[in-house]
């Protein structure tokens, strides 16, 4: 599992209210949620993010509300992986459950600037800043997390594992 894209870099304590404001929770349509992703923090984000891009942030990413709409909005905005110095507890679980790859890698965050080209090898945990040539070794995803992410989320992965079930 490889990711590569442009880094969009933000600060610490990026809360789920700025990731997806509650005024947009009147839908659970991923595309509609994605259209408002991070708009209270950076109104330009949705316009500049391309499929595969990488979100980079400081400590405590995803703090605040338990809304699962937050990782869904980020994922469907096109972000392939979020790299942060640390994640808030509920967001961490929600990201994995909804199939959004996340990595805790403080040194990498310090070495990635906004607009840098970055690649991530989820199997080895290697993060490379292609723009500067630096790389860092982060914790790779455990196999069960990789299965969930490849399956598109916990429910989808579990259903595939038990062999179908509800259509």
């Amino acid at each position, binding site marked *: 599992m490889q990711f590569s894209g442009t880094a969009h870099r933000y600060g610490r*304590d990026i*809360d789920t*209210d*700025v990731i997806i*404001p*509650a*005024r947009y*929770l*009147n*839908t*659970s349509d991923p595309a509609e949620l994605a259209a408002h992703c991070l708009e*209270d*923090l950076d109104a330009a984000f949705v316009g500049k993010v391309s499929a595969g891009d990488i979100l980079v942030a400081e*400590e*405590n990413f995803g*703090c*605040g*509300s*338990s*809304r*699962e*709409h937050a990782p869904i909005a980020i994922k469907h905005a096109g972000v392939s992986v979020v790299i942060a110095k*640390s994640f*808030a*507890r*509920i967001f961490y*679980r*929600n990201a994995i*459950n*909804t199939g959004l790859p996340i990595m805790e890698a403080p040194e990498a965050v310090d070495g990635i600037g906004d607009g840098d080209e970055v690649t991530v090898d989820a199997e080895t945990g290697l993060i490379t800043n292609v723009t500067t040539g630096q790389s860092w070794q982060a914790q790779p995803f455990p196999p069960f997390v990789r299965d969930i992410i490849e399956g598109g*989320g*916990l*429910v*989808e992965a*579990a*259903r595939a594992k038990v062999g179908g*079930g*509800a259509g």
Partner: protein
Amino acid sequence: MSAIPGKTIAEKIFSAHSGTDAYAGDIVVADVDFVMGQDGTTPLAIRALENMGVEAVFDPAKVAVVMDHSSPSPIEGVSALHTMMREFGKKTGAKVYDVGCGVCHQLIPENGHVVPGDLMVGCDSHTCTYGAVNVFSTGVGSTDGAAAMAAGKLWFKVPDTMKVTYTGELQPGVFSKDLILALAGRIGVDGATYMALEFHGPVIDALSVDARMTISNMAIEVGAKAGLMKADAKTLAWYEGRGDRAPQPVDPDADAVYAEEIVLDASVIGPQVAKPHAVDNVSPIEEVAGTKVAQGFIGTCTNGRLEDLKVAADILRGRKVHPDVRLIIAPASKQILLDAIAAGYIQDLVEAGAVLVTPGCGPCVGTHNGVPSDGENVISTANRNFKGRMGNSNAFIYLGSPATVAASVIEGVITDPRKYFTGGEA
């Protein structure tokens, strides 16, 4: 030879619910006593249950869904989500608290759905509120909530515990909200990430159950998974007549192992205010007094309870809200509204110029009931002041106690409420 180490409240509750000898760091699969969702998060949980092919909940008496965040519905999209929740209730037998019942975090303990010693999860981050009544309760996302609704169990990592002790004595005009804001200012919004908090000391013992809930409610604002307190005689008295399950209080062992211990002297804590746009951006009120406000809000799962309305009514009785300020009141439940009407608080507040809205979350989360305008400052009793939280990212939210909000809306600027409590009323 080493003795068997003592346990924290969290370790004991997880041991009892997982059938293991659980300590911090262990991963356990534990039975949950209750599962709750609100109108922002339940629709995704219902969708997840459908995707799992699950038709029933594990026990209809142990599942409730609450319409509180956007209630009554302000827009057709939400109306459809509310319909989906009502149909879910009819199909599964889960309890539905419809519009006007109140905030989920008031309704769940108020109706005895959880009792001391329980383990429960809710699809809302402020589910940690019931730690005040000795329940290990924690917020989860909709997928985890759906799994718990289906199976009655969930996997957990048993958290380390940070012990927070408040010594001394609370001063007049200072409230439990000020105590928890002081902690947030001290340890920061990620100061207790992944941990449980355990609150101790004479100041906690002296607080009412209502006031304790304000503290546990904000455990998540420092990143914590739970905000636990012991069940004492007050807790047990509070439970009389609520539900039919017997409380099973859980005390920590005297030799429990804490990852961190913090002691705060309440005697030197005055009114605190969290400034925009972070809950740990906390100042003593003296530093922000005089800041102009356009809107005040008293309510929410943090401070919408009867004694909060009483404090506000006592200050506002016979006075007027400043002509340039709106004051919005949202009681945390229908029962609180009825009690506040019977006690005369609602009359006092409305006569003073307050606007009463439906029991529920009110304008806290920015979906309805008072979205501030560009550039406006709001003084609120809520638990979050994130940018855009109340529906406008160009507004500025300050957090304080109900007394601080009541004092501030009279003068139109952030005002130290202590003058109403020390006999020095100007």
